[in-house]
């Protein structure tokens, strides 16, 4: 078992540098991803948290080159993949796999589970038939299903089982990076944890680098060592999960954390200082000057309206994009509006 320090010291497997994904050209493109940098090492899970439309799914897709980037670089295992094409791109896409929220749409209803896995093993790995049959059973067992299920069709499985099949298919090509986009949000609570535990086990077993995209902060906490908080196409705060959750520095992270129903706090009868944000989650088409969070920020000051804050290093591995990070104090002042 590696310690945290060793893990951080190794070279990252997947990196993005100042990545930008703009939609629609011209003077006013939609900036879905606007200057995001990240690095994920083998065996590490980085959480990407944000609300709808913040650009987190686009970022995930851009990382495996399913979206064209407008600027910045993607580096895999030390090699620049930004402009890769042809066989290099296909090889890269095999080493980085993605799983999605909806396991229903992801599986072909006319294809038995065994046939779906067999197809991947034949096309992407070029294995002979006997080898494919053996691997199919191995894969199903790796995700906690019986090998005998290979002959069944997607509709014969529950939502949780289908997500297991989707994971098995992603593993079939022996990827090194797994991008999981809201992998449990469509599942029942009692089943969610089964899938989360499966992902934790597979991460250990295959030493996967994982980007875990989700809106559920408790789920992200359970899965990730490091987290990044995204708002309006930008990373507004990142750091070790422990530190970010116990002492969030960006006002948005604070609001997000305080908005989550906290069962433990309720059970202990603790009253929480909840920050209820006014206003709406911005759409990417909106023009916001200065700090993108300023229209909703309870701590907003004049400077925030005029000047966009850079993502600044606050301590080792901890970066925050707020002019007043570290100076906010505990209560939302002075402009907190309570309706």
């Amino acid at each position, binding site marked *: 078992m590696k310690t945290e320090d060793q893990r951080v010291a190794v070279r990252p497997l997947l990196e993005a540098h100042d990545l930008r994904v703009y939609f629609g050209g011209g003077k006013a493109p939609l900036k879905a991803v606007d200057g995001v940098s990240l690095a994920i090492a083998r065996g590490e899970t980085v959480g990407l948290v944000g609300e709808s439309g913040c650009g987190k799914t686009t970022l995930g897709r851009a990382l495996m080159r399913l979206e064209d980037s407008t600027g910045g670089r993607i580096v895999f295992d030390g090699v620049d993949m930004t402009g890769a094409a042809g066989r290099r791109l296909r090889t890269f896409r095999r080493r980085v796999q993605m799983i999605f929220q909806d396991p229903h749409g992801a599986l072909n209803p006319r294809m038995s589970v065994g046939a779906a896995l067999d197809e991947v093993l034949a096309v992407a790995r070029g294995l002979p038939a006997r080898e494919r049959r053996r691997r199919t059973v191995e894969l199903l067992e790796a995700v906690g299903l019986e090998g005998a299920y290979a002959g069944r069709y997607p509709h014969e499985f529950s*939502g949780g089982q289908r997500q297991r099949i989707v994971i098995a298919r992603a593993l079939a090509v022996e990827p090194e990076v797994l991008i999981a986009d809201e992998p449990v949000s469509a599942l029942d609570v*009692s089943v969610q944890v089964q899938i989360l535990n499966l992902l934790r086990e597979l991460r250990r077993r295959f030493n996967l680098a994982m980007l875990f995209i989700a809106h559920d902060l408790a789920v992200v*906490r359970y899965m990730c060592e490091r987290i990044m908080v995204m708002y309006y196409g930008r990373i507004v705060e990142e750091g070790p999960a422990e530190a970010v959750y116990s002492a969030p520095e960006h006002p948005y992270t604070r609001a997000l954390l305080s908005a989550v129903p906290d*069962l433990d706090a309720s059970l202990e009868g603790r009253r929480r200082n909840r920050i209820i*944000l006014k206003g709406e989650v911005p759409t990417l088409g909106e023009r916001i000057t200065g700090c993108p969070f300023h229209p909703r920020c309870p701590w907003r000051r004049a400077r925030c309206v005029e000047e966009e804050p850079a993502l600044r290093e606050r301590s080792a591995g901890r970066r925050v994009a707020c002019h007043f990070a570290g100076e906010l104090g505990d209560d939302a002042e002075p402009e907190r509006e309570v309706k």
Partner: protein
Amino acid sequence: MALSEELLRVEDLRVYFSTERGLVRAVDGVGFVLPKGATYALVGESGCGKSVTALALARLVDEPPGYYAGGRVLLRGRNVLEMEEGELRRLRGNEISYVFQEPAVSLNPVFRIGYQLAEAIRLHRRGVNVREEVLALLKMVGLPDAESKMKEYPHRLSGGMQQRVMIAMALACRPAVLVADEPTTALDVTIQAQILELLARLQRELGMAVLLITHNLGLVADLAERLLVMYAGRIVEAGPTLDLLRGPRHPYTRGLLAAVPRLRSVGGEVRGIRGSVPNPLRLPEGCKFHPRCPFASDICRRVEPEDEWDGERVVRCHRWREI
């Protein structure tokens, strides 16, 4: 609780569906009493029957394929399930109203929201200035800039705004009971918080009873005074919210609580409940939870447990005292 005035009483409610593939007993013997002005939460996973229970309170289940196979729903002593059309219409507008998960589906896309609200008011209340009432309602639900928003079509509003409009429509008739079925599930976390705060405030100000239907246990702790946990068409456990959450008795409630990842949890592995929610067409014999229950014994496989009361708490489990 003994002193509070009873508003809604559900007794042994059974709602079944005839489908091509067989009979689905979606709700099979549900009972509870909702006092005036109280907030209760009905909690469970998909297919447990919580939404069908909610719809049955105003006899809104589609018949066919659904039918009421037994039991009573008494609102102020009158059985909703035996009401005639006219009486039902008055009930639905004036005494029970609903807020659902997807506001975009519930709002009519071709009418401006002010018009839709005005319709709701005209239908249910006489002798009020409709325009003033529309504005008052929109302000009450915290819709900023109500004057101009009432002229908008639904798609021009965000999900959170649409849900505020839905709540305004539900309140147009000043209902005695508001049934909120997963009212914040489709919304972003920060918007969820706004809507929950709004519901809590309105409940206090208007003194209506609220039945909150949700799968999210974290949500109910702060809002509901009593919790009803449903599984496979039955209420398997009920009690005062904090009491129940601090000391769950039914193995399903225990499993569900253990399965929720906590914001503050560090390190340790959370365990889920083995297996998955049962297929409603093929419910097991005996206790419906026994195939997933780590404590199941012979009696659990054969005999379905009945309500066992203990003070304000009730549980349906043969073995809760031993485990």
